[in-house]
C-alpha cells in the first residue's frame, strides 16, 4: 500500500465530517429523526402517508446544498470515472442494497456507529469490505 499524500485532505475531510455530524444531531434532537439518507428517500416511495413533509424538507435542503455552497466558495471539481452502463448498474445495486440492508453510509456508518449499534457495525463492515473488494477487482484484476 502506498499513501496518496498529494490527494490527502484531512482538514477539509474532518470539517465536512463535523458538519455531517452536526446535521445528524440537528435532525435527531430537533425533529427526533435519524439522518439516514437511503431511509429518508426510500420512505417517500412507500404508499403510507403522514410523514412525508419532513423527508421532503430534508431532501430539499440536501439537493440545495451545492447551490448554497456555491454562493460562498467555488465548488470543488469532481470526476466521475464510471461510464453510463456502470452508473446504472451501480445505482440499481445501491438502491436495492441499501433498502434491503436498511441503511447506507449515513444511516449505518454515521448514525448506527454513533449509537454503538452492533447491527450497524456489521453492516458498515460489510459494505466497506464489498467496496474495497469491488475496486480491487476493477482496478487491479480486470
Amino acid at each position: 500500500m502506498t499513501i496518496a499524500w498529494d490527494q490527502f485532505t484531512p482538514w477539509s475531510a474532518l470539517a465536512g465530517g463535523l458538519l455531517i455530524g452536526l446535521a445528524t444531531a440537528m435532525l435527531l434532537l430537533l425533529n427526533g429523526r435519524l439522518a439516514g439518507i437511503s431511509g429518508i428517500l426510500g420512505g417517500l416511495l412507500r404508499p403510507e402517508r403522514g410523514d412525508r413533509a419532513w423527508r421532503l424538507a430534508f431532501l430539499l435542503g440536501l439537493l440545495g446544498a451545492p447551490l448554497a455552497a456555491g454562493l460562498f466558495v467555488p465548488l470543488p471539481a469532481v470526476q466521475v470515472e464510471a461510464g453510463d452502463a456502470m452508473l446504472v448498474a451501480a445505482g440499481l445495486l445501491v438502491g436495492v442494497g441499501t433498502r434491503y440492508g436498511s441503511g447506507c453510509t449515513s444511516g449505518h456508518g454515521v448514525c448506527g456507529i454513533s449509537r454503538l449499534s452492533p447491527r450497524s457495525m456489521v453492516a458498515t463492515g460489510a459494505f466497506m469490505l464489498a467496496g474495497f473488494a469491488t475496486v480491487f477487482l476493477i482496478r487491479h484484476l480486470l
Partner: protein
Amino acid sequence: MRMFSALLAGLVFGIGLILSGMTDPAKVLGFLDLAGRWDPSLAFVMGGAVLVGLVAFRVARGRSAALLGGPIQLPGARGIDRRLVLGSLTFGVGWGLAGYCPGPALASLLGGGYKPLLFVLAMLAGMGVYEVQAILAARRAQRPG
C-alpha cells in the same frame, strides 16, 4: 418550524458532504482502493461525523421527546440477519462500481451534469424494486395456507 429545521439539517448535511470530498466519486474510489495509491481522507469524514454523533445520541438517550415536539424515533433493535449482511454487501458493490452512495449522489444532482442524475434515477428504480418486492412478500404472508 419542524419543516425548517429538517430543511436546514439537509442543507448542512449536504454542505458537509461537499466540503469533505464525498461528492467526488474519484476521491471515494481513491479511499476504497487499498491496493493502489490510497487516499485515507474519507476516514476523517467518518471520524468527524461519529465524534459529533456520539455526543448527539448520548444526549438523545436521556430525552423522551424531540426539542420541537414529537417522539425521538429510532429503529428498534433487530438481530443481525441475512438481509442486513446481503443488502449491505450489495450496496458496497454498487458503491465501489461508481463511487457514489445515496447522500453524495443527491447533493451532486443540481449543477452536476447528467451522470449523478443517471445514478440517482437507477437508485430510485432499485429502491422501487425493493418496495414492490416487499408488498408482494407481505401479500404472500397474509394469504392463508
